[in-house]
């Protein structure tokens, strides 16, 4: 009764074939990441040391450490977050919790999607025009961070909206039915249950912001600065631009130095991403419904 017919055998063969195909595609995806990490660690691992992280570059950037660039990236990311997170979260709350579905909100929706699709070099030129020249911030951390903030706003808005949307509508209606205002409902029910997703989005934004080069190279990041930034109106070095510079612009750089810089940069991003993933898993375990 359960003897295998020719058709069964053929189906099983085909099914096995496709399984292999999809598996190979998946493995193929991992290969570039593995190669990148392996190359960086093997070629650049040697230069990493406490001194490398915490001293200034010397000898025309062909020796010494990366401290100004590292600190500059922290500055730029921090100021960008201060600008984009409150703005993005507020916009997402408005769009998801207050605004109805009308032409105005659909227009904003469209704008956000398009903003996400604008190439980073265009953001860079916008940043020069708007922040460096028009607002008169000059090439500074502030101008660079605001440019990055605008570029990453769609990430914050979209991820915040997704987390707000994940809170069931029935909870809101139950709360409204008791006479709660929109804000009371948001504060007591919606935000406490969406905060994990919002924070995850913010962390992802950090890793994106840290790695961007084009938007900051005309707006605030310097080729080389022998001193550390004292405030948001100063220029600064940054990891991503420093990598570009030592890899292509300066003659006589020892081969392992750019790999070391790249390793530090990618480690920063991977650490942020890992925190984000760990955080999400932790909060998923605490899901309340």
């Amino acid at each position, binding site marked *: 009764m359960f003897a295998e017919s020719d058709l069964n055998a053929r189906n099983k063969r085909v099914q096995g074939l496709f399984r292999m195909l999809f598996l190979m595609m998946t493995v193929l995806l991992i290969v570039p990441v593995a190669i990148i990490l392996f190359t960086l660690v093997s070629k650049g691992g040697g230069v990493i040391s406490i001194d490398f992280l915490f001293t200034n570059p010397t000898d025309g950037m062909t020796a010494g450490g990366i401290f100004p660039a590292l600190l500059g990236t922290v500055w730029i990311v921090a100021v960008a977050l201060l600008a984009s997170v409150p703005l993005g979260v507020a916009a997402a709350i408005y769009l998801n919790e207050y605004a109805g579905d009308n032409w105005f909100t659909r227009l904003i929706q469209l704008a956000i999607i398009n903003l996400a699709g604008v190439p980073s070099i265009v953001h860079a030129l916008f940043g020069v025009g708007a922040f460096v020249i028009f607002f008169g911030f000059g090439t500074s951390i502030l101008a660079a961070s605001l440019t990055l903030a605008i570029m990453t706003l769609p990430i914050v808005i979209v991820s915040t909206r997704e987390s707000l949307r994940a809170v069931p509508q029935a*909870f809101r*209606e*139950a*709360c409204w039915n008791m*006479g*709660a205002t929109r804000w009371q409902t948001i504060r*007591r*029910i919606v935000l406490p249950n969406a905060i994990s997703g919002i924070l995850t989005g913010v962390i992802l934004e950090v890793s994106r912001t840290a790695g961007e080069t084009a938007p900051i190279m005309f707006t605030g990041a310097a080729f080389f600065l022998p001193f550390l930034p004292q405030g948001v109106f100063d220029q600064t070095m940054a990891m991503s631009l420093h990598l570009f510079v030592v890899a292509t612009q300066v003659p006589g750089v020892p081969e392992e130095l750019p790999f070391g810089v790249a390793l530090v940069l990618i480690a920063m991003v991977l650490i942020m991403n890992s925190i984000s993933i760990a955080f999400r898993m932790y909060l998923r375990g605490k899901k309340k419904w």
Partner: protein
Amino acid sequence: MVNPNTNLKVEAEEVPVAEEAPVKLEINDLTIKYGQHTALKGVNLEIREHEVFGIIGPANAGKTSFLKSINRMDTFDTNMSVEGQIKFNGLDIQDLKNIYALRSRIGVVFPLPVGLPLTIYENVALSPRLRGINSKSELDVIVERCLTRAALWDEVKDRLNSLGSLLSGGQQQRLTIARALSQDPDLLMLDEFSIAVDPVTTMRIEDVLKELKKDMTIILVTNLVQQARRLADRTAFFLENECVEVGNTEDLFTGEVKDQRTRDYVEGKFG
């Protein structure tokens, strides 16, 4: 010696007195639409203070829409429009600026329980907190009273700090009822509350409702005509988006009806 027959007669004559109770809700020519679709049309009725007002009728008759319009839930759904007049304590609720105050005086329980993602305690304490009651001792009293009234206290008193949404369906429904009671409402609207509740608990809640009648007006939408008979002072029969008739519950169930369709529905010939 009081003649038992005379006594009965006196009680029977007390019914009209209830009819003179103040009007809690006055519904004039109420029509509810979802886009082009009419959910309820031309409803006229009065609901009096401290009565249990039953609404019976088959699915899709407009019963739930009726409740939604009273709580101004049309503001949640841009597709829903309400025409006509609903007067709550004599005030037209369409003109009310402060619909939050209106909603806070109306407790609503829907067929599917909604346990908010809060602890059991906070589920019941939420409404008092929204009204500005923050003292722990006051909240404790309210939480215990409401959970007891909803026949849930004994089951949850040792785990008030665990999540409400992790309770079983029947318990969550009683939690929802407790939450509605925590509003200290003038009007309690129950929409087929017993769907997710076992029969024993249903009977316990029905006993509770008979008690609550002293403190508030109750609208009871139910698919179980016998539940309406057990609880409701007066009952409305909704059918095909219309209110067919309103009458004393006993009259409806003893055949003293104005419309043949009511008799058929009550006797179980359709529905």
